């Protein structure tokens, strides 16, 4: 029985033709994964930055999964939308951060629950995404921290 915490935030987006943006997101998992708490999909507010190019959302993501198997790791998909002055929405970009939750061996052997937080923010041409995952008790002993990279 392993648990996984996905804690992070969608910071913002930049590099799109317009700046008035919002983001829809969702997390997909395989069959073996159970959502214990948290919302697995959502939508950020529309940010229309007056200064700077980055539309900041700082949208929190906080999920808690339990899994009975290692297949079907959570994947997050992001859709960046633009809302124009008439309130019409238009999809500007989307992306998945797939299974390459870049795994790093925590190497902890303690029985006690521990949390390792790793934060990664990558500023690719559009969306920033920070996410930290805490995996609890995979196979009771192995603790691993997961680091998500975005690529949109």
């Amino acid at each position: 029985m392993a648990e996984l915490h996905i804690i992070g935030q969608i910071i913002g987006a930049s590099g799109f033709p317009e700046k008035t943006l919002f983001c829809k997101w969702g997390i997909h998992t395989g069959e073996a994964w159970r959502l214990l708490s948290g919302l697995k999909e959502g939508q950020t507010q529309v940010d229309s930055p007056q200064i700077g190019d980055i539309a900041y959302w700082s949208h929190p993501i906080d999920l808690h999964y339990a899994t009975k198997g290692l297949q079907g790791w959570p994947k997050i998909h992001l859709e960046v939308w633009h809302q124009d002055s008439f309130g019409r929405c238009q999809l500007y970009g989307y992306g998945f951060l797939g299974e390459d939750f870049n795994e790093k061996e925590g190497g902890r052997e303690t029985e006690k629950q521990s949390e390792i937080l790793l934060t990664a923010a990558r500023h690719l041409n559009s969306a920033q995404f920070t996410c930290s995952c805490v995996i609890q008790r995979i196979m009771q002993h192995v603790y691993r921290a997961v680091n998500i990279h975005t690529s949109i």
Partner: protein
Amino acid sequence: MEALEDGEEDEREALKRHLRAERQKRKKRLLEQSSLQKSRDADDVKDVTSIQQYSADEGPSEKADDSVVLSKSRTGSQKVLCAPGLTSITQHTHHLDDFVKRRLEEKLKAARSKGESLQDKEASLEFPSRLHSLKDRDTVTRFDREADADRAGRRDSPSPLSTRVRFREAARQVGKGLPTAEEAFNFFTLNFDPDPPDVIETSSRRRQKQRKTTDEDEEHEDVDEDIQEENETQSEEAPLVQTQEDLFVIDQSPQDFLEIKKAEYVGYQKLLQRQSELLFTPSFRTVPTSIKLPENMKPRYLEDEGLYVGERPPVSLTNENILENRILKMEEGKKWFGDDGRIIALPNPIKESSTRPPLFHMEEALDPALQTVYRKAVKSKYANLYIAGGADPEGDYQLDVDVSGLIFSHHPLFSREHVLGARLAQLYDQYLTRQRNNLTGHLTDKLNGLRNALRNMLESHSGLNPTQALQQRISEYNLEVRNTRHLRDSEQEKDRTLLKNIVKVWKAIKALREFQKFTNTPYKLYLRRENVDRVSDEQDYEDEILAEVVELEAETEEEYQNKLAEYKKRLEEWKLCRKKQKAKKKKQKKKKKGQAQDDTEGEDEEQDVSESEGPTDEPPPKPEPPERPDLGSIEQWVREKTLRIRRKPGEAILIPELSASANITASELCPRAETARREDVARRSLFTKILYNDKEVSRTDSRSLNTDFRVHFGQIFNLKIVNCPQSISLQVFEEIGSSCSLLAQVFLPVPEPSVVTGSVPLEEFEFSSNQRVMFDHEGVGSDVPLSFEADGSNKQSLLTSGKVSCCVSWGIGDDDVPLAPPISQQPGGVHSGMGCLDAVSYIGASGLYDMKKIGEWARQSRLDPNDPKNASIMQLLKVASSGEVTAPEYFRLEHLQEEFNFVTDEELEKSGRFRLLKLRNQEVAEFRNYKFIPALEREVTDTVFQEYEKRLKEGEVIDTKEHLDSHRALVAKYLQKIRESVINRFLLAKHHYLLSDLVIEEEIPTIGILGINLFKLAEPKRPLKPQRKERKKVTAQNLSDGDIKLLVNIIRAYDIPVRRLQSNKPGQSSHSALQGSIGLLDQIQVRPFVEVSFQRTVLQTATADGPNPCWNEELQLPFSAPNGDYSTASLQSVKDEVFINIFDEVVHETVMNDKNRGKSIQTHIEKRWLGSVKIPFSTIYSQSKIDGTFKVNTPAVLLGYSKEKSHFTNSGFDILRSLSEGTFITLFITVDPQLVPGESVREKFDTQEDERLLQASERFERDAAQRYPERPCITTVIDLSGKTVFITRYIRPLSPPKELLDEFPNNPLEATPLVARFVSLIPSLPDQVSFSATCDLWSTCDQFLTLLAGDEEEHAVLLCNYFLSMGKKAWLIIGTAIPEGPTAYVLTLEQNLYLIWNPSSGQFYGQYDTFCPLQAVGCLVNPDNVWFNIQQYTSPMRVSFDISKAHLWKPFFSRTFSHPGLSSIQPEELVYRRTDRAAAAELQDRIERILKEKIMEWRPRQPTRWNRYCTTTLKQFLPKLELIRGQDVAEGHRHELQSLLGDYRISGFPLNLAFSEIRPIIEAVYSTGIHSVQASNVEFALAVYVHPYPNNVMSVWIYLASLVLT
């Protein structure tokens, strides 16, 4: 040898003869041909238009010159370029010609079908126009063809007729428009003469043949002169024929569309020369200005004159000069020059900046036409071919390609001698190979061995009867001998033939050398004789023959015997049916036998065949007996054969030896043609390209071609590869000067990984090319028929061919590791060798899932079961054959999921932790506020779930024990359900966040605020006038227990009842008298203090004196939220109330007489309940503070106390004045820190209202909120089903219960308070508490009466409706009150006085009553309209309730927006249930019993004695109290009681409650503190009375009293 020489001589002669004859023949043929053509011309002119063989090869040089001269007259025509047919050049272009021709034929074939069908269709339509056009076409096509023969041909043939016609017409017009009459004349007359179209309509094959003859005859051009003359005459005829257009009408043959002619080539020098004659080349010297300008004009420079002249485009001076020179040659050339003598030019068109709109706008969308289209990247075909690990630059693989060299077995530049030489070399190679293998010798040895063995066998067993096994062996030996002999014979024959061929070719070479008088090849063949001993040789020869003959005879005999046996068998059958002829047959048989014997013995003595039976002739029906083999002929045949395949006995053994020692004749001595060939050879060089996966990766150096046509490269190429090798090939290129052409391509096999450099020998790969090459020198060319026979027969076409010797292998790394990829990665290597069928091709890809098919395939292809590669298949088959294997009918995605799970589903479900987490997330009531969930499974106890599971199990069952009334149990259940559904709805709605929920933006201070702040700084400090500071609000979620405190500031109280002197029995007790006297004296007859209890915490103030005490004391009560959840929703649902009780502190002093010590006074302090105020926490929470003076809820009768009415003793007071009597207390209550009150749910609800109405109401409310933000304004409310309803729909006259009205049939005015009391008796239950959110739900009156619970709105609505039905003018007041906050009251107009009714208490106040709890009036509602208060003040005392005045009250429905006639949602009539007195009595008993138990419970230390007498007395009072609704009964009542209980000091009071549940009753009793009397001799009295009202509304009276015996 002599014979050989003779042969050579012969051949030479033959060759000469042949060549001569051929020349003659060709000449003759040409003559014939031309004459034939001539004769045919007349017939065939019809084809002239379409096919014109421009026979350059036959075109005479004189004619060519002629044409040149002629064409000079026509400037601009390019005809000259192509006109002369130079035979020598055409030689070179022959193959090109062929190529073009082939292409045209193909095109024609395609076009013909198309064109024919088109023709058929259009024939009728197009005919006339075609007739016209055909005439002109001739001229047109001629021009075209001359420019580009290929194009012309192409254009002519396939294009549809219509376009062709159009084209021609256009051409004709052009032609007509331009030339002058003279030109036209020249054009039509002179033009055709010099190069008449050689009209040929023979098949292409014939032409080819003709050309061939020409090729071979290049040295004898003079012979052709006469032919040319004929051609000339013939061509003169052509134009004549062309004019006969009628002839063209005849149908068109396919050739009509096709024009075949050779490509012309003109020598470069000649071309230049001719071009110089034709073309004008302007000089590039600067032209003097004077020439460019008109005469006598001076150049004028506009720029100098001050005019703007644009910048000229930059042109190089040379170009400009050339252009000027050219223009000057033209007519009117000068007009191109401007005034300044320069060519007129527009300004430079190139702009500084781009004028084209930029492609990418940031703002606008791009024109869709310009939009870039995204295409998915296509994966390269080779992408998946990369060798795994190939990405690593270090771990790559290396292929070594060793190109050693190449040898031509045929080359176009071979001379005849070379051809023969190559053949000789080939034969010699063959011979050497044979010699090395020496098959003949081997076979001969074997044969001898076999014979010996056989002989030995026969000898050793000669005397004995051969056993079966022996016979078998002998026959086997015989068979073996026979086979071996056959093999040997064929080998010997081959040897012999080879030798003969070698000799023959050598002779041919010699003949050729002699003939051509020079030597080209270094080959020289020696025939070495090896003399043999004639005798022994002959002996051997004869022996051999004899042995063979013997064997053959034996074989024939055996065959014969077999046949005979067969025959006999059949004969036996025949005999059975023909027995009678037996005798005759026998006779005949004997005779025949004798003859046969004689024959055989005469022919061959050695034959010792013993015949047991002789065959006999039988009559026709009998089967034919086999013929006796002719043994004599056998020897004959053997000898002949031996002579053929073996050398004669005694003849020397000839051993050919080929050497390259012959001298090659020096070039100077050779004839011109040969020299030319040699020069050609020397010019050429060869190189090889190495192609890896069809990409050139490397090439060898260029090596010149040697005279022996061998090229040595000797280069090794190391290829570092990443892609899997698909193909490796070498391309052999021949270089002549700077041009190079591909000779051939050789594909090399990809080596096995085991093939490593160093271990592989060079291999020879043959190549050949089918390119046709022809030369005008001695070179024989390629793909050109060639004959060495004198008569020209036996022609061979030799193709360029040769061998490349090279090898491909995998390189070896530094550490001796082969740099080869593993086998598995080599595509194509999977297919195992021959005999194995490819599974996929056999059963098809889809069939791979079909077991049967796979099985069948495996059987047929005979898979090797031991091959590990086939293991999986074999296993599959094993399973398949062993039993029924049913392929699953389903398809699943993660089919390996199960294998990788580390827990099962059940385990996951069982996990308490996960369950807890999930339930918390789902906000299930029990777990909603669960803070910390244990991290470890074992820390989660099962008890956590017990309550939840219990609830789930008993969800439907409602505990009726708590409820004393079945009806209320049902109601409670119903309420619970509504509550759940509403909660769920709100939970959902809670997750709908607004921007303000997520984004908290600090307001940037404006200048105004800054300015005010600055002013504040400048303000003088006034410490005596402290200003209230805004407290910081705290969001609820980050709070924990103990953080929140409830602050209760008790300031003062008014009109507290004072103790009444028990004057009826004065002097009874000195103490009391004393007390009484003090009271009388000081007028302080009460010592009140306040006790505040909240959540079981009790605090009290100090004791003050007098009926109007002032405490001014702050009490801090800790607050803890249920389940430790401080979320808004949780806080809203806190049901706790703050009880503020006022007590009187009574001190009893008891004098104790002690003999020893004297007197001591014992003081007893007793508190007596005077009244209470209840404030629900939810009110405090939503109001955040409560500040004001509240009426204290005092019991109707307070035994021992009386109201102090000193000021108003003799009153003629009206009813209103008396109403304000009572006790009041001033309080300030708040929560510290300040909590953010929950906001109302913003969810938009369903509605059935008109959209217009909704919009109007929204506008109305918005306007109101803008102008008077403090005044509550409600136009729409939400009903119980969650729908938005307009508020006026709730107001409708509804009749109150009849019983109430019947009480006062005469005085309806009297009934009013009763109705109000009825309404107030319906329990009040705030919405916030019941529905845990701040959403106000309005239930209709029938719902309200059914639920018997509701808050102020429901009460007010019901009361208002009752009043309306009673004929009163009534309105609903939406306003704010103390302590309820926003609430609803009822306004009535009676006798020109406005009365304000508090529906929850049933009290009414006059408009000018100071103590009216209503603080502000927002709007008034009646069934027809809503009025909003737009007056300056909101306080009821200062408000005018005259709604007709528009400047005071703003109506919702006005003239502009009239009332749409909204129907009420209230029922037409309320149905009341009759009062159930029995149930009331039962309830009464139960309450009494419960209360008694409780009081005893609360007094665990002391005995609780009940005074029965008192109780019964009290019981009698209670109905009376109900009757008069607790008003002003105190005096008589007390007197009565006093008389009854003279000896007791009694204190007590009746409590009146609306009945909802038992719990509030207990709470109320507890809060009075009556149980806490400490006196030892105290007795209690408790009486309960439940008065039933209609519809189960109950009024509960509880009389509590404590009695102390004095």
